[in-house]
C-alpha cells in the first residue's frame, strides 16, 4: 500500500495514485476513533439527542473556523474573533432591547438585530484587515489589540455584568437555536450553509485561488495582478461575517452576552483549522478539514462530559493530548514527502 505525499492544493485528479492520503483522511479518522471511544464509554453517545447536541454545538466554532480558514490560508491570523463575537452579541442585544418600543417584540426586531450583527462583523473585519494591510502591522498584533478592545467594550456596555435580551424577544428568537428543520436544528443548517459557501469560495472561485496564492507567496501574487491588500482585507471581512453568523445563532441560545462570552474561541477556531490540515503559515487551506476539526474539538468536550473516570481537573490534559495525537496521526506520513 503506497501513500500519496503531495502537499498540494488538493484539487487535480490524483486518481492514478491509489492510496490513503493521511493528510486528508487524518482528521476524519481521528473523529471516527473519538466517536468509537465515546460509544464505548457510554452507548448513549450515539443517541439522536446527543448527536444533535454535538452538531449544534460545533456550529459556533465551526462557522467561525470557516472564516479563519480564509484568513490563515492567505497568511494572516485573527485572534479577535472571540471578543468580536462577545461585542457583537452585546450590541445586538442592546439594539434589540431598545427597538422593542418602536418595533415590538416580533420578527422585525430580531431581523434588525441580525442586520446590525452582520454590519458589525463586516466593520470589525474591515478594521482588522485595514490595519494589517494599510497600517502594515503584523496581524498578530492588530488582532491581539482589537481582541482586548472588543472584550473591554462588552464589559463596558454590560457595566461589568451581563447584557440580557428582553424576555419577549427571546420568545420570538428562541426557535433560531432550538427548533429543527428536517430533523436538524437550525444552527446546523446555518453551519452547513456556511461550510458549503466557504468550500465553494475557497476551491471554486478566483478569490479562493487568490487567497492561496497570497499565502503561498505574496510577491508572486502581486506580480500576478492580484490586489493583495484587497484580498487580504476581504479575508478578514469574511471572518467578521462568519463571526456575525455564529453570534446570530449564539444569542438565542443563552439570550445574553457578558465579558466571558466567547473567551478562547479564537484559539479553538484556529485549532480547528489546523487540526483540519490547513497550514498556519498560509498557502494551503481546507474547508472540509476545518469542519472536521471543529467536530473533533466539540466531540472531545462531549466525551469528557460522559465519564467521571477522569478527574475533572484533568480535562485540559485529555484535551491537549487528544489534539496532539489527532494531528500526529495525520502528519505521520509526512517524512516520505520530504525530498
Amino acid at each position, binding site marked *: 500500500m503506497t501513500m500519496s505525499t503531495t502537499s*498540494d*492544493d488538493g484539487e487535480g485528479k490524483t486518481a492514478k495514485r491509489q492510496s490513503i492520503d493521511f493528510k486528508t483522511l487524518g482528521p476524519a479518522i481521528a473523529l471516527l476513533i473519538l466517536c468509537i471511544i465515546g460509544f464505548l464509554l457510554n452507548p448513549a453517545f450515539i443517541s439522536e439527542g446527543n448527536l444533535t447536541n454535538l452538531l449544534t454545538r460545533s456550529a459556533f466554532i465551526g462557522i467561525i473556523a470557516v472564516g479563519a480558514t480564509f484568513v490563515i490560508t492567505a497568511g494572516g491570523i485573527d485572534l479577535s474573533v472571540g471578543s468580536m463575537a462577545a461585542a457583537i452579541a452585546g450590541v445586538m442585544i442592546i439594539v434589540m432591547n431598545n427597538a422593542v418600543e418602536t418595533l415590538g417584540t416580533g420578527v422585525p426586531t430580531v431581523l434588525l438585530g441580525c442586520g446590525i450583527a452582520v454590519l458589525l462583523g463586516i466593520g470589525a473585519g474591515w478594521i482588522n484587515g485595514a490595519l494589517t494591510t494599510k497600517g502594515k502591522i503584523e496581524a498578530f498584533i492588530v488582532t491581539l489589540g482589537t481582541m482586548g478592545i472588543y472584550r473591554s467594550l462588552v464589559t463596558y456596555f454590560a457595566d461589568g455584568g451581563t447584557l440580557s435580551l428582553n424576555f419577549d424577544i427571546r420568545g420570538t428568537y428562541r426557535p433560531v437555536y432550538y427548533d429543527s428543520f428536517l430533523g436538524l436544528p437550525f444552527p446546523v443548517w446555518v453551519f452547513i450553509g456556511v461550510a458549503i459557501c466557504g468550500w465553494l469560495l475557497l476551491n471554486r472561485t478566483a478569490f479562493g485561488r487568490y487567497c492561496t*496564492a497570497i499565502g503561498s507567496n505574496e*510577491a*508572486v501574487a502581486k*506580480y*500576478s495582478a*492580484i*490586489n493583495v491588500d484587497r484580498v487580504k482585507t476581504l479575508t478578514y471581512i469574511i471572518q467578521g461575517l462568519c463571526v456575525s453568523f455564529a453570534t446570530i445563532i449564539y444569542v438565542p441560545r443563552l439570550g445574553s452576552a457578558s465579558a466571558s462570552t466567547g473567551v478562547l474561541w479564537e484559539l479553538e477556531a484556529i485549532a480547528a483549522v489546523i487540526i483540519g490540515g490547513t497550514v498556519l503559515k498560509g498557502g494551503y487551506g481546507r474547508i472540509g478539514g476545518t469542519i472536521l476539526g471543529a467536530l473533533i474539538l466539540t466531540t472531545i468536550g462531549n466525551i469528557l462530559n460522559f465519564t467521571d473516570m477522569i478527574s475533572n481537573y484533568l480535562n485540559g490534559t485529555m484535551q491537549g493530548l487528544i489534539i496532539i495525537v489527532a494531528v500526529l496521526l495525520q502528519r505521520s506520513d509526512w517524512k516520505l514527502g520530504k525530498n
Partner: protein
Amino acid sequence: MSMDVSASVAIIEAVNISKSFGPVPVLFSVSMDVRPGEVHALIGENGAGKSTLMKILSGFHDPTSGQIRLDGKQTPLPPNGAAEQLGIVLIHQELNLAEQMTVEENVFLGREIRTNGFLDRAAMRAEVQKYLDEIGLDILPTDRISKLTIAQKQMVEIVKAVSRKARILIMDEPTAVLTEEETEVFFRQVRKLKESGVGIVFVSHKLNEVKAIADRVTILRDGQWIDTRPSRDLTPDTMAQMMVGRELSDLYPPMHEADVDAQKVLEVRNLTAPGVDNVSFDLRKGEILGFSGLVGSGRTAVFEAICGLSPMESGEVLLFGKDVSNMSVAEARDAGLAYLTKDRKEKGLLLDKRMRPNLTLFALPKFVRNLTIDRNAEEDALKRAIRRFDVRSRDADITVGKLSGGNQQKLLLAKVMECDPKIVIIDEPTRGIDVGTKQQIYHFIAALAAEGVSVVVISSEMPEIIGTCHRVVVMREGHITGILTGDHINENEIMRYAAGLKREELH
C-alpha cells in the same frame, strides 16, 4: 590554456548513476568524472537531468542506483550539504541565500569563525570584504541579501562557494544571470581555482562560455549520457547539435522591418520613479524594442513603475493614447499590458503549487464562468501551453518547484501570455533556457510581433538584443542614454552608451 588533464586521476567519479523520483525516471546510468584542476562542463536541454546529477554528486540527492567514488573509493555522501566537509561544494541553480540575513552571514553560514565560542565578526567581515574586492562587487558585507539585485545575489553565491576551500566546486548555471563583464570576472576566479588544483563542474546553457572555459564537456540528453569530449574538439554548434539531437538552423529568425508609421501603443513621458530618472520613449504596434544596459541600470524599474508594481513619482504614461499613469497591475493587464519578471522564484511562480494554478493565475478572470473557475478550460489551457511552449515535465502532477529551471521559465512565459497581451514586456526572456528552446522563444517573439503584438525585451545578453530587436533603448543609472536603430544596433555602440561614454541628446 587548457592543461593536459587526461593523465591525472579523478577526484570524484559518478558511476552508472540512475535516479527516479517516485516512479518517474530522470537519469539513466550516467557516468562522469572530475579531475583536479579541470573545468568539466555539463550541458543538455532543459530537463535533461543536469541539476539532478549535480545534486547527486554533492550529496543532496541519493542515487537510485550506481555509486559515487571519491579518490577512487566508493563513498556514500552525507546529506544536506554536509559533503562540504569532504571538500564538495555546490552552488544551486536556484539561489540559496537567506534573504533577511547579511552578505557576511550568508557567506559564513554553517562554518562561522569563532573565538572563545563567540563569533569573530571582524575577521569574517574582513574575509568577505577581501573576496568582494577581489571580484569587484560593490556591496558591503553588512548589506542584506533582500536589497541586492539577482546578479549581485549570484555573485554572493559565488563568493560563498569560492570562500569554502573546495576540492570540487560544482556550479549549476552560475552565469545565467550575469552579464558578460561579470562572467569575465567570475571566470578569472575559476581559472585561479583551477590553477590551485580544484576540480570544477560547470553547468551552462551559454555554449560560448562553455567553449571558453571548459576542458572537457559532458552532454546529457533526456537523462542519458551522450558523450564526454575535450572541449577543443567541439564548437558551440556541435555542442548544440549533440544536446538537441538534431541540427539547429539559425538561432535568430529573419528580422522583419518594423512599420515606422505604426500606431504608438505606449508612450512614456518624463517618467520618474524609484530607480528611474526622467525616462521617455515610445513603443509602436508590432515593434520589438530592446532595453539594454548594465545590471542595475533601471530597466526593470521603468517597467515595474509603468505596470503598477511600484509607485510612479512623476511623468505620464499613455497606453493606446489614454493616460494611464499609476494604474494597478490588474488594470495594466486588462488594458493588454503584461510584464514578465526576471525573478521567477521570488516573483514569478508559486513553487509549492502545480502547473495549472500557476499557469492561469495571472489571467484568472478569463477562466471565470458563472462566478466559478472553469477547470476544464484551465486544463485545456494547460495542454495548449505545454504544447506551445514545450514545457517538459516527466510527471505532470509535480509542484512547479520541482520542474527543471528552464521549464519553469517556459511556464512563466506561458503564464504571462495566457492573458493575450497586446504589449508584453519580457525581462530576461531566456534566462536558464537551452539553445534549442531559445531558438523557439526568439521565433515566438518574432511571430508575436508579426501578429501586431508589441514586445519589449529587457536583456543583459547583447546578442539576444541585437538578434531580435528593431530598436534598442540603452539605459544607465536610471536614465536613457541612447535609442539605437538599424545599423547602430551593434555591440560596440550599445556598450558605449551603457558605459556612459556616449550620450545622445534625446529631445
